[in-house]
């Protein structure tokens, strides 16, 4: 992402916490964060319990969270944060950025993910981008999200009466046409710059659209349980 797209009024360093148990990655990330004047490391935790203790004392703008923690899954921390500190953006630290890890994290309320092998400047850029309301996304993940959206639309068409009951929830998670276009283009392999060019908007706006889709996916994943339950109830009738 281009640093020019970032908010020019953002001058205060972004507060970051790190939840990671593997010492090498932890050291590497600490080094990278501390090397940037625009980021401020507020604390480091290596277990879920430590993370809660840390979050009790501080409210970071960005939380970098590893999923495989010794006492529990990082998903738990993401869920807790999205419920209790929604202003904190969660980024999942992952080696591969694979579908299984990423989609689960997004559904729990994460704003995006960091690949462990990013170059130092890439890491800093990603963190800042997320702090400023943007989110990177891979085409396969985008394809996955599109599939979910289409599936949901199909279900709505099939069961309009159920939709009426859940309208309030739906409004919150409804994807706009522009968001849909963005995600479709991402799934076809276009970069944020290319999409921005095609749509006549800034790359920052493209990133914002993507992030909104993430958030909606989170809302959706929460309402999904209710929805599916109703569907089952309906089938029982």
């Amino acid at each position, binding site marked *: 992402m281009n640093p020019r797209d970032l908010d020019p009024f953002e001058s205060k360093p972004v507060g970051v916490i790190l939840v990671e148990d593997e010492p090498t990655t932890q050291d590497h990330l600490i080094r990278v964060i501390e090397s940037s004047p625009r980021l401020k490391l507020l604390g480091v935790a290596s277990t879920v319990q430590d993370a809660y203790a840390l979050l009790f004392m501080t409210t970071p703008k960005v939380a970098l969270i590893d999923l495989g923690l010794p006492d529990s899954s990082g998903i738990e921390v993401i869920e807790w944060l999205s419920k209790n500190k929604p202003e904190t953006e969660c980024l999942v630290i992952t080696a591969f*950025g694979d*579908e299984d890890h990423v989609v689960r994290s997004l559904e729990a309320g994460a704003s995006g993910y960091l690949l462990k092998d990013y*170059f130092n400047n890439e890491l800093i850029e990603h963190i800042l981008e997320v702090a400023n309301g943007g989110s990177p996304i*891979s*085409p*396969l993940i985008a394809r996955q999200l599109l599939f979910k959206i289409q599936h949901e639309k199909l279900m709505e068409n099939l069961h309009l009466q159920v939709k009426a009951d859940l309208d309030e929830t739906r409004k919150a998670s409804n994807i706009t046409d522009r968001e849909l276009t963005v995600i479709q283009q991402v*799934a076809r*392999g276009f970069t944020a710059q*290319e999409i921005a060019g095609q749509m006549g908007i800034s790359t920052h706006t493209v990133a914002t659209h993507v992030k909104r889709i993430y958030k909606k996916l989170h809302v959706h994943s929460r309402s999904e349980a209710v929805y599916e339950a109703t569907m089952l109830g309906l089938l029982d009738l």
Partner: protein
Amino acid sequence: MKPARTDALFVWRFSLLFMLSLLTALLGTVNAPLHALGNESVRQHGYLFDHARVLFSSNPNLAPEEVLQRSGKKTVVLPDLWDVSQQDFEGQGWYQIKFGLDPDKPKPDALFMPKAIMNAHAYLNGHWIGGHGSLHGDVARHWNHPYLFQFSPDLLNQNNNVLLIQVAGYKNYRSGLGRVWLGPSELLDPLYTSSYRWQVTGSMLATLVAFGSGILLLVFSRVFREQEGFFFLSLAVIVFALRNTGYFLNWTPLPHAQWGQLVHSLHAWFACLYSLFLIQYMGLKWVWIRKALWVYAIGVTVLSFAAGSQEILQFTVWLLLPIVPVVFILNVMLLAHSWQHRNLEGAILGFSSMLFVLLSIRDLAIMLNVLPVESVLLSQYTGILLFVSTCWIIFRRYKALFEDLETSNESLNSELAQREQQLFRQFNLLRKIEQQRTQDDERRRIMQDIHDGVGSSLVSALNLSETRPLDQEEMRNVLQECLDDLRMAIDSLDPQSDDLLALLGNFRWRYERRLKASGVTLLWSVADIPKLEGYSSRDLFDLLRIVQEIFANSLKHAKASKIELSVRWDQANDKVLLNISDDGIGMPANTLGRGRGLAHMKIRAKAIRVELYTGGGRDERGVAVFIAIPRMRRR
């Protein structure tokens, strides 16, 4: 229930049935109503005539006045049976009774005759006072009907009255006149009504019941075709019912003589069929006896019709007598059989049958004049009990059959359910095996991918490091390559990895950083394409590998500064066209090292049934690779 208790219960029931049938037979014999004896008030206030002077005449046109004047009347005791008093006579019998009135008794106004065979009319002091139907030619059949004639008391005088009863009869047909009652109609009417009920209405009902049960038995006997000769019984019952119609019908479809022959034969047929049923029911072989019974029935029929109208009728008793002991003996055997087998069904059948035989013997006694001719005939009634009990037996068997059917149905159902469960288990097992196989396939594929990709990268780096130490740049490249390979393997596991565009997009997303680092510009030009069909994730992964090799070649060997990738849909040929071109120095004919190169790419392409061509890039510079992917994978 315990066997001992069942046994005791059977003995109890058997004894009860025995007592009941014996009692009924005795009551029937001794205590059956005999209306000719009147009742207390009739005896007190009426006049019973048991003597008369009779004139027999074959002239059907004789007038009552002539009869009164004729001499040659002889005195007889009533009941008077022509078979006894006037053998072989056929015609009219005029019974003349003279009487005076008793001042202590009320004036009579009705005449009651329990029996006058075949038909009778009556005259009082020269006036006709009653009579139905013909007395000439085909005489109306009133042989089992009682008569009640009412008249005006004014016809009577105190001391000198003459009652003339004209009776028409056939020879050998038990014709004659029973005792005669004169008295007030309010006293005689109940007697007449009761007599009519016993002799006519009751017979009619009994015959109806016999017919009904006969038809029912016939229907059910088809169900139990193989069992115990219920068919014979049903025929016997129908024969019995047919024979019984004579008790109440006052006309016959045949002239009376032929009708007599028919009834006669029907008796024999009934005895034959019923005996056959009993033999069959007890499961006796008795081939000769069976044959003898058939011969008997056929013989009696032939004899009856051959011997000519009336002569045979006097042998009736003698022809029927021998069969009665046979039926009786069979009956006793049936009882013994049911006792032996503790078979209640057989006992019920045996006792009702026994009662039937006993009362038939009683009726035969009337025919033989052991009992008065006015006695009510009862054998038609006893049949009812026999037939109803047989119907009950049939019903029970039918019910048992149904229950059997239901039980076997149930067991069939449960067997079916078991089979279903078995099938379901087998299906689940198969599904598990299938799942396991899919998993194994997938595992094998990943192993293969790691072997070909990460494995071979590491091995070649290791080999290289043995010839000389690797510098930092080379080390980084090797590790990056390994990581890229691993990511590509993981991406190919993505559920959406059957989408070629997303897969290519992900490849770009992974590779972009390297292109940027090398200063290469990528032109991405993709359009919507239809979903590819029949390609496994392994196929698409191989396709991606080809793309990766083309990119690697452009980057490492061709020193390109611009790569262009385009995907479009060639609808005419039903193919997706993937073109990659660069502006570098071209591709070496055969790249050493990891075996990559054009030849290797072509082998891969051939394996997944896609076409691959190479050519020069734009402006005669660089390389262009054209890959044509059929929408439906070729086998």
